[in-house]
């Protein structure tokens, strides 16, 4: 029973990473933008969702969770979820509008730097985020009144699956649409695309903002699944785990993004069992960071290996043929 709950929780986490990867797919897979600051949209979405849904100061619920965080708005979780997407999108719009014209490696450094600034702000503005202490008691939708603790992981998994399916459907549609096609043209060769009249800065900015929205929604999903939020959860390595998921799954393919996240989660969780490997035991006993660090070494090696030996990823990008003769009108 405990094992299935564990696996369910793991799958939920993998799917949430899948949503994150979908956001990055819109920015990189579709628009070719090297975003090294993706975790910032995730963080902002998570905090927005938490902040808006935590019980307001003075209420019963507030006192029930310890009466520490005073800025809660007490809004229903679905509303907070949408607001998280909006927050992620707005941050992406802000960051994107300044960087959209930068060439690739400058864009990578700029987005990385801006994400670190966001993290700095979230850490230092303790009045907003409770800084090093974190916030407990982030509301978990449908828990308590409707579903008890035992069945909750399955409920949350179901919620997550619904969100993933929706995001995936939207991404697939976007990718195949004229907008997606114009973006891919810009990604392939910006000069040629502009010579065909594609307004590349505007197109890229929109894709970037959309990616931020999706990442923000992922943040909301994540914090409500845990019930706890803490700025230390949003470290740069998350950005690169999402990159690995995307590259592994197939960068030009939205389904690949989700698949890559699931595969990556399977790999990294597989390393959890290194704890019990006999000859590593003395090392892990002496140094508690041993296995977690080993896991990150593996992620680093995977990043290097995938980029060098497996750049296409698992699922290739779809080549779209001309539509069939006898279909009328519905080629949009």
């Amino acid at each position: 029973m405990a094992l299935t709950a564990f696996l369910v929780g793991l799958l939920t986490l993998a799917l949430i990473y899948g949503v994150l990867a979908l956001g990055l797919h819109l920015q990189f897979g579709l628009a070719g933008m090297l975003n090294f600051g993706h975790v910032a949209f995730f963080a902002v979405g998570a905090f927005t969702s938490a902040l808006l849904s935590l019980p307001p100061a003075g209420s019963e619920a507030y006192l029930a969770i310890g009466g520490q965080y005073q800025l809660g708005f007490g809004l229903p979780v679905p509303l907070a979820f949408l607001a998280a997407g909006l927050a992620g999108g707005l941050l992406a719009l802000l960051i994107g509008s300044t960087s959209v014209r930068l060439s690739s490696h400058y864009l990578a450094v700029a987005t990385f730097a801006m994400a670190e600034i966001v993290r700095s702000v979230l850490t230092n503005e303790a009045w907003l985020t409770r800084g090093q202490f974190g916030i407990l008691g982030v509301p978990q939708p449908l828990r308590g009144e409707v579903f008890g603790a035992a069945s909750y992981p399955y409920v949350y998994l179901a919620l997550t699956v619904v969100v993933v399916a929706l995001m995936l459907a939207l991404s697939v549609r976007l990718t195949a649409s004229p907008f997606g096609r114009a973006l891919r043209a810009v990604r392939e060769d910006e000069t040629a695309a502009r010579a065909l009249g594609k307004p590349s800065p505007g197109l890229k900015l929109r894709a970037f903002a959309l990616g931020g929205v999706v990442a923000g929604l992922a943040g909301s999903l994540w914090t409500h699944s845990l019930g706890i939020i803490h700025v230390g959860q949003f470290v740069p390595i998350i950005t690169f785990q999402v990159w690995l998921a995307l590259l592994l799954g197939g960068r030009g393919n939205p389904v690949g993004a989700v698949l890559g996240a699931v595969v990556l989660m399977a790999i990294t969780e597989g390393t959890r069992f290194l704890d019990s490997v006999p000859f590593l035991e003395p090392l892990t006993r002496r140094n508690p960071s041993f296995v977690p660090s080993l896991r990150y070494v593996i992620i680093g090696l995977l990043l290097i290996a995938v980029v060098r030996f497996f750049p296409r990823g698992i699922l290739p990008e779809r080549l779209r043929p001309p539509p069939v003769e006898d279909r009328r009108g519905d080629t949009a």
Partner: protein
Amino acid sequence: MSEPLLSLVDLARSFGGLRAVNGVSFDVLRGSVTGLIGPNGAGKSTLFDLVTGVTRPDRGSVRLADVELVGKAPDVIARAGLGRTFQTPRIFPAMSVWENLMAGGDRHPGETVTRSLFPTRRSREREHELSGRAKELLTFLGLEHLASGSAAELSGGQRKLLTLGRALMMEPAILLLDEPAAGVNQTLTRTLMDRIADLRARGVTVLVVEHDMDLIMQLCDHVVVMHQGEVLAQGTPGSVQRDERVIEAYLGGAV
């Protein structure tokens, strides 16, 4: 077929101390095929970049009908009706041949986020329209059998045809062709020439940079010769061919 569609007036651009283009002025008449020739290093590619907005000129003006192009972004210029191809064909390698063509269609109301998710009637119609034109172009270029495949798998000559077709999807008022026949075999050059002649018949104005003299002489109504960043001579193909200054420029430098 008499008034100028594209007017270049006193265009100039220097890089460091080098005057790549030094006061170039000429007109391209509506409905004509105009050739731009000159030895290597004459400044032809730079001139193309100046006209298409890739590089900003130091001085001068470019007018398309009565619209000033200097200072505008390349995509704005393209939407004003100016299409171009590149010397090395810039295909979109990860996309199919079909999508390469479809990506060429501009002024598509469907190219927004909302209309991608919730298409309007107008965007559906435009997509249908472009679809029809793309199919027609596939036939025009002889590429139908390759439509579903990746553009990356096309040969050099086929890529040239594809990028020509893609530029035509925009239905440009004027098409700038940058060495369309370079590196292309005889048969394909023949095909290209026929296609360009067809374009003229359809009323598309063409400005073509070329080294292949046969192509220039057979296709062009008017030829402009550049040398060392300036216009050396211009006129009918015959007159230019006989012009002494032109002969000397070509003998003096490499073609």
